[in-house]
């Protein structure tokens, strides 16, 4: 059925907007950087994730309303990454597409954007997604060499060419590799989080316990076949390569701290309670209720609402990864909800310290009054409802792919329960963050 034929229910001015539903998802297992996908490009992985979604839901040759996806580490040649992936996939080639970039919130933001279009009646169906490869990262030439090369291309006479080349210095030949340092502070994400972790006095043990729970929850989810309709194997990898089902507090406790070693506080952040560099891709199929019904597709959960925030980490007013803490009360207030109204919490584990700092901040009366403008503490998150099927510490974190992983898993978890709400929180580089609400149908 064509998109046009179904697109008859555009919201009229003043009419209530309609629901956007999560139909399902598909991702490839996440690999550690330099592992199974060492030679896969973002385009390869995103195409594979889309093709798996197409196979699961029988979308071969279909023109989906719109596909939105993105990557954080992106080659300049991949300016049309998602479009190229769709053209290489089993979807109809006349499927429109846009690329999006919002650091680690990219994946969640594509879900929010497409869900909004569905709610407004602009599209009937959409595929949201994200992909990242830390293995196949772009390497740029130095700024000096780049200027010389550009001047050289503009030079008309031999003399002008020689002048341009003469400006080249040996140091200019060193390539410019990407890193996770913030451009405005020069600090890596881990070092930024170490400041926040110390600020909230998050203990080493509590961080290791969170990491342990993530591994155990993810392993248990695999054990009960939870992922059989969420993941399609890729390049021989059938499970998230970072998962350590047999890890223990002793093993995690034996790791040496890697971040915050220059701070006065005792360093607590290790490779075990921080996410590793990861390769992977994820997708989420969204649609209107009419679309899902007319295609006999499941409806797992509604995308209810979302809120973005940003913080001034440059001048030290707030921690780099604390923006979701600020977005959360705005989202809850707008929807007249409190933490007690949620059955599941998906707080992206960039670092164990990120999750625990956010939880501590929401429980801190002074902070909530002074920084969030609330009357008191926002509240406590029931730890038994937190990341119940594992999160990024166990699964890994291919930046833009994390949002899709979380949305699809949470939607399925809500569908299994058959009722309730789920809350998502994703922090992002640049002091940004996005939080969102899903609701069971």
């Amino acid at each position, binding site marked *: 059925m064509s998109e046009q034929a179904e697109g008859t229910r555009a919201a009229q001015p003043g009419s209530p907007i309609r629901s956007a539903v999560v139909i399902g998802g598909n991702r490839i297992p996440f690999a550690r950087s330099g592992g199974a996908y060492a030679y896969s490009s973002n385009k390869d992985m995103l195409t*594979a994730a889309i093709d798996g979604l197409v196979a699961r839901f029988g979308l071969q040759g279909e023109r989906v309303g719109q596909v939105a996806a993105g990557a954080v580490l992106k080659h300049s040649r991949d300016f049309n990454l998602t479009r190229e992936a769709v053209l290489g996939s089993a979807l109809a080639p006349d499927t429109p597409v846009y690329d999006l970039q919002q650091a680690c919130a990219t994946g969640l933001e594509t879900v929010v954007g497409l869900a909004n279009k569905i709610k407004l009646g602009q599209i009937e169906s959409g595929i949201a997604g994200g992909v990242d490869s830390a293995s196949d990262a772009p390497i740029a030439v130095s700024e000096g060499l780049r200027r010389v090369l550009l001047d050289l291309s503009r030079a008309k006479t031999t003399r002008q060419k020689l002048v341009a080349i003469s400006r080249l210095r040996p140091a200019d030949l060193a390539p410019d590799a990407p890193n996770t340092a913030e451009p405005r502070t020069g600090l890596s994400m881990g070092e930024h989080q170490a400041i926040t972790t110390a600020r909230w006095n998050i203990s080493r043990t509590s961080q290791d316990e969170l990491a342990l729970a993530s591994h155990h929850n993810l392993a248990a989810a695999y054990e009960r076949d939870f992922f059989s309709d969420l993941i399609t*194997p890729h390049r021989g990898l059938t499970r998230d390569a970072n998962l350590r089902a047999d890890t223990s507090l002793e093993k995690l406790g034996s790791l040496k701290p890697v971040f915050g070693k220059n701070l006065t506080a005792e360093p607590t952040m290790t490779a075990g309670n921080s996410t590793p560099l990861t390769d992977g891709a994820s997708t989420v199929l969204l649609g209107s209720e009419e679309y899902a019904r007319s295609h*006999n597709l499941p409806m797992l959960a509604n995308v209810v609402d979302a809120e973005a925030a940003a913080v001034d980490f440059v001048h030290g007013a707030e921690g780099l990864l604390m923006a979701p803490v600020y977005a959360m009360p705005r989202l809850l207030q707008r929807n007249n909800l409190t933490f007690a109204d949620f059955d599941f919490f998906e707080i992206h584990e960039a670092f164990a310290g990120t999750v625990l700092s956010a939880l501590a901040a929401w429980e801190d009366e002074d902070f909530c009054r002074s920084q969030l403008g609330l009357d008191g503490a926002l509240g406590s998150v029931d730890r038994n409802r937190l990341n119940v099927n594992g999160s990024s510490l166990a699964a890994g974190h291919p930046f833009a792919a994390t949002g899709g992983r979380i949305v699809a898993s949470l939607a399925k978890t809500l569908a299994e329960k058959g009722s309730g709400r789920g809350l998502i929180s994703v922090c992002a580089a640049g002091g940004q963050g996005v939080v969102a609400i899903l609701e069971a149908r």
Partner: protein
Amino acid sequence: MSDSYLQLVNSVPAGRVAKALGLPLPVPLRRYQSGAPLIPGPVLVLGNGAGADTVAEVLLGWNQDVRRHAQPKERIGAVIAVLDSVTHPDALSAVMLELGQSIRQLARGARVVSVSRTVAGTVDPAEAAARRAVDGAVRSIARELRGGATANGIVLGDGVGIDTTSAVGALRFLLSGRSAFVNGQFISVTSDRGELPAVVAKPLAGKIAVVTGAARGIGAEIASVLRRDGAQIVVVDVPAAGEQLMKVANQTGATALQLDITRPEAAQRIIDHVRDRHGQLDILVHNAGITRDKLLANMDEAKWNQVIAVNLAAQLAINAELLESTVFSDIGKIVCLASTSGIAGNRGQSNYAASKAGVIGMVECTARVLDGGNRTINAVAPGFIETEMTARIPFGTREVARRLSSLQQGGLPVDVAETIAFLATDAAGGINGQVLRVCGQSLVGA
């Protein structure tokens, strides 16, 4: 795995050498191609009774060039020996000898098909002898034919007419390229149930089919052939095979269901999937199977149990729930993969042969349960088929296994798939509890 010997002897010089040395001379088989003629030449219908006239009328209805006697030196596409009314062995000679005279005139890929009646339907020893004699003659003719020609039979049950739906369906199947690797076999038509397709080229139009073990090999080919014949497919395989399964699904417009069929919830997952996505299930192909070969003396518990669990116990469990389910169509078809190993036994395959013989037992019993209704269950027993699995057999053993059949070659996955697709059609509704071999008339288990 390509059969390089077959390719070699079909080149002129090597073919001459092979002929001079008395080596096997396999030829490329006549397989189904969309748009190709049903039969490569005129059809000779032998036999004197009303049955022969009826068969001739059916063939004329298919716009075939029908002969009651062969013209000299004419290439014949098929010979149908209609022997449904023989009452004494003496009555066979005229038809058999005329058939013999036509054999040298057969075209490449020709078909010989007998039509006879079941021995079970008579209390007259002479009539039973005559009916059974047909089997022996046809199996021998199958061994004598060359040039990729085959000989098979249709056995009519008690009171089943020659123009009954499934007899006509079986006749068309055996004459067509779909039966290329079926040789020396008999298809029993036991009831007048079934329905011929509205569009001959799309006999499965509108059908919903589940194929297990569909990620590769024969399973992937089954999905492809069912799709070609018009069915909407659900492909199932273990989550670990999901990447290949995805490719098969996207090539056949199917939905992929990653599922370990040995899990206790497997039947319910399949039922839920087809109900939610497609509304109903018309065809279930139990193709998933594994081998864990060991001599029984060296067999461990895991190897034995895994093979029984996947190849047999899973089918039993899924059938039990499916046959109770309203999601499974009233005219639903189950087709199971057995194996010639399950018929003949095979060294090093006690577990596998047990599972495949068990499938045959299950099919025969379930067919009795279904008898009287419109659902059917049948099995297909492949012989040596060119797959990734048989490619791992050592060279010498593999070459011998290939030449053991009357067609002197291994079959292709598509040959198995074609037979399954036929048994899944409504035209096969009068065929129930059969184990149809797709083996080129292999000596194994013959």
